[in-house]
């Protein structure tokens, strides 16, 4: 399973990447929204995990791109406390699930597996 992981905090990107690799996923990492949008032009991931607040392009733009290109990828949004209004917007645009920081890595994996089971 191919996962596109977009997170601007480098240590978080590395930690989540390592966790997902250990769980057997193929992970493509991006630390900004612009690169993630470019990757979506070339690749079709099974799942996109994206932070909402990103440099250059936001997580919302990534969701819009996935939907515009009619990709089958499921989307999990990473949010911080106090970003509830953005979560609502993300869901309206087609996000499938969200995880609020600080989050448990195992919980993220459970949610991913649940979404991928229905793919």
């Amino acid at each position: 399973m191919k996962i596109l992981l977009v997170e601007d905090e480098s240590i978080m990107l590395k930690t989540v990447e390592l966790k997902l690799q250990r769980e057997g996923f193929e992970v493509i990492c991006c630390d900004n929204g612009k690169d993630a949008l470019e990757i979506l032009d070339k690749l079709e991931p099974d799942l996109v995990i994206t932070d909402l607040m990103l440099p250059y392009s936001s997580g919302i733009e990534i969701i819009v791109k996935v939907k515009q290109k009619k990709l089958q990828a499921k989307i999990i949004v990473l949010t911080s406390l106090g970003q509830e209004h953005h979560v609502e917007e993300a869901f309206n645009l087609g996000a499938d699930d969200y995880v609020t920081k600080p989050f448990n890595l195992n919980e993220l994996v459970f949610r991913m597996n649940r979404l991928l089971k229905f793919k």
Partner: protein
Amino acid sequence: MQYVFLKIITPATINTATIILLSLLLILLLFAFLILNNSKQIFIRKKKLSTLTENLIAGIVIGTWDNWEEDNSSIIRLKKILHKKDARNYVINQLEATINNLSGAAKQKVQLLYNQLNLKQDSLKKIHSRKWNIKTKGIIELYTFGQTDMIHELYKNVDSHNEIIRMEAQIGIINLLGFKGLNFLDSLTYPLTEWQQLKILEQLAAHTEDGQLSDNLSKWLLSANDSVVLIALRFAEIFQKLHFHNEVLHCLTHTNARIRSQAIETLLHIANETTANELVNIYNEEIFSIKIQILKAISAIGNKDQFDFLLTQLSNENDMIKLYAARALTHCFKTGLTILEEKGKALNTVYEKIYLHIKKEMLLN
């Protein structure tokens, strides 16, 4: 004059000047090259450090508890990198980012790692700095990494003259001790800003209240620091301290209007059958905004005892008072709307307008 100038500008002087200028340019270029090269080296070193530490920290954080011993090889490698202050600060920042974004076992591992790398010493050095920003960073680090044994260091700063330092120290104490940490309110001399009161309430949401508030609330409600009284009233409201009804009533006579206003808000949440009458008793002495607040409160908690009072206020010369009294009358009494309708027919257009306005409100609700 022209002759003298031509005499100075000879081919020989032009050559010398050219050589000097070229030499200066060369020195300048050399200098720029050295600076750029140095910056590049620093960047490469930082990049190497960040890649190495990120890999090591991520590996430790997602490892299982079973192989924590095995992970010690990574800890030893990290320790070797940490002989420079910059590297230690870098690692602390990375650990802070991790702990702020992850919960569960990962959070515990980051705290353990912070201890094993002996980074507490760095945070303590920061907390003893004279610069407020460094001091604040030290405070944040100590509570973020759960250093409860360093709580005395936070207490030292809880009444600091610097607002940001004391704010972080107070948040840190509550973060580590929960409701028990609120005892700093006993001796607080500086005011708690609205923002800080909200931050304190936000921190408390993560803890369970086991009676610590009840032990101290009476004392804080009588504090000489008005902001302590305000936050105590908020505690009574949010944590439903019904048995502090009388103490809260006492705040209705406070000299500070902000406290009297908050006391009314609190009473709305812990009201009993006597509350509305107590509000009526202080009504005449109050300022206009609090009078309106009292009428609003009576609208929510009033009973038959306030009927005459509301009728009197309905005849008040101020139209705002009339409106709020009318609203309370219709909320508390079934006959309220009929009274208004009759008054509207019998008297001037103001009552008729109020009647129609309230009727519309009732339909919309």
